[in-house]
């Protein structure tokens, strides 16, 4: 392979730089809170203490599990429905003509705007927040799958028709693998959005016993515990990062790597 190696930064530098930025950031945070003598905003250390408090009370991992449960299932259902639907819209023009306008209309509506309806429809069950998360990821998944079909290089379709593929094999042997990279990218973005929406979704009353990280934020806000609000934010950030790292691993497979820039 003739890939030119990009000038590589030494590992110690790649570790040191972000660490320095983090330390400076936390330092500024601490100094700013101390200077302004804020009664409300917590210091970094108080946030860590807040997390430890939640962990020792045994609710931290419970909340994390609850949020993951809601987000991952909603996302999975959105993917299961959105990918085939998007492929259909991309492939079959009448379906596209029929559904694209309404999709484009619903897409820009923020999940927060759906909160009243979701409570009216689903009440206090887990379905209410999950519906919001589902919506937030269903549209990007559907639209990226649709675009993926439209972006298939015509030469692959011509080669496929030359070999006399039936509809089924055309789908499994060409359309699906050709669209997979873009579908995967769509899924990755949608998972990020789904996780982003967890706070808003859990503003819808969730079962306080199950809780959740968004619930933690909303609830701590009511109780005036801003240290726990920030703790919730930090946890959401960290877990979001881990989810993204995990799904990124899929992009390394040979089945899809061809479509991503090779560096």
């Amino acid at each position, binding site marked *: 392979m003739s890939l030119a190696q990009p000038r590589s930064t030494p590992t110690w530098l790649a570790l040191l730089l972000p660490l320095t930025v983090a330390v400076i950031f936390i330092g500024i945070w601490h100094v700013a809170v101390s200077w302004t003598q804020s009664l409300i905003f917590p210091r970094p250390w108080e946030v860590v203490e807040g997390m430890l408090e939640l962990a020792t009370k045994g609710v931290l991992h419970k909340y994390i599990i609850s949020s993951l449960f809601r987000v991952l299932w909603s996302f999975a259902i959105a993917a299961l429905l959105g990918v085939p639907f998007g492929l259909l819209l991309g492939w079959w023009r009448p379906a596209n003509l029929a559904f694209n306008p309404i999709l484009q209309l619903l897409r820009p509506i923020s999940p927060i705007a759906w909160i009243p309806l979701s409570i009216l429809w689903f009440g206090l069950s887990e379905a209410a927040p999950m519906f919001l998360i589902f919506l937030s990821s269903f549209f990007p998944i559907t639209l990226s799958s649709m675009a993926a079909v439209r972006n298939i290089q015509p*030469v692959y379709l*011509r*080669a496929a028709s*030359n*070999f006399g593929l039936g509809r089924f094999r055309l789908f499994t042997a060409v359309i699906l693998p050709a669209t997979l990279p873009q579908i995967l990218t769509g899924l990755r973005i949608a998972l990020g959005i789904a996780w982003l929406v967890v706070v808003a979704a859990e503003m819808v009353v969730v079962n306080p016993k199950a809780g959740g990280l968004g619930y933690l934020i909303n609830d701590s806000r009511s109780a005036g515990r801003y240290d726990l609000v920030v703790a919730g934010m930090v946890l959401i950030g960290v877990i979001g990062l881990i989810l993204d790292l995990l799904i990124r691993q899929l992009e390394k497979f*040979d089945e899809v790597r*061809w*479509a991503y820039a*090779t560096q």
Partner: protein
Amino acid sequence: MKSAGPTPRNDLPLRHTVPNGLAVSLRDLRMTFPGQRGQPPVEVIAGIDLDVHVGEFVVLVGPSGCGKSTVLNILGGFQQASGGQIVVGGQPVHGPDPRRIFVFQENGVFPWLNVVDNIGFGLSKHSRAEREQLIAHYVEMVGLKGFEKAYPRELSGGMRQRVELARALAANPEIIWMDEPFGALDYLTRLKMRSDLVRIWQSERKTIVFVTHDIDEAVQLADRVVVLTPRPAKIAAIVPIDLPRPRDMDAPDYLHARDRIFEAMGNLALARGR
């Protein structure tokens, strides 16, 4: 060099059973594209008559944009002509057909499959053992031994064209359409690819209709060179190249044939001046 090469395939039934021995027969082929956004219609092919015999290697040459790809696309069934009679394999063309495989100008190898799976793409009806044997045969024929598990993105442009050629051959078609398959390759690779293609054609004896704008390529490969005029394309001349292969590029007969093609393209002065 132990390029005895793989043994020719005798096991496959030859389906070259066209009554008059013609693989392709074109009469008054015409193509006009409807003008887009208020533009007048574009006439691209203005009446072509051409016969290609079974087993023959015919090369179409012409300046860029004259309509070569369009002719081949119509033969391959990817485009519908606006007029004329198009008979391939004794029957009118209704669309792409696995008995005639296209090798595309822009490489049509599937990037999500490795070399072996690409070559075996057209062999889904064969048994597993047959498939494996055919794949191994063509991997060797196109010189990709050792790269069986490689993915297209790990191969050079020339190797990718070899994969596509092998994929076409493995499907055992009667005809192979090739649209400037070596156009994107560097000069030395192109030379090597041409001589390999000739060797393969000699062992497989498929009918090949090959499109290029490169006159040397045409003279090195063809039984007959069909020279097209600039758009709208008509046949300017048909030049038979009756030279033994592999061809010596410095032989007087070779140069003579070349000159005739240049002449037909209206560029003799240019050729002489070289």
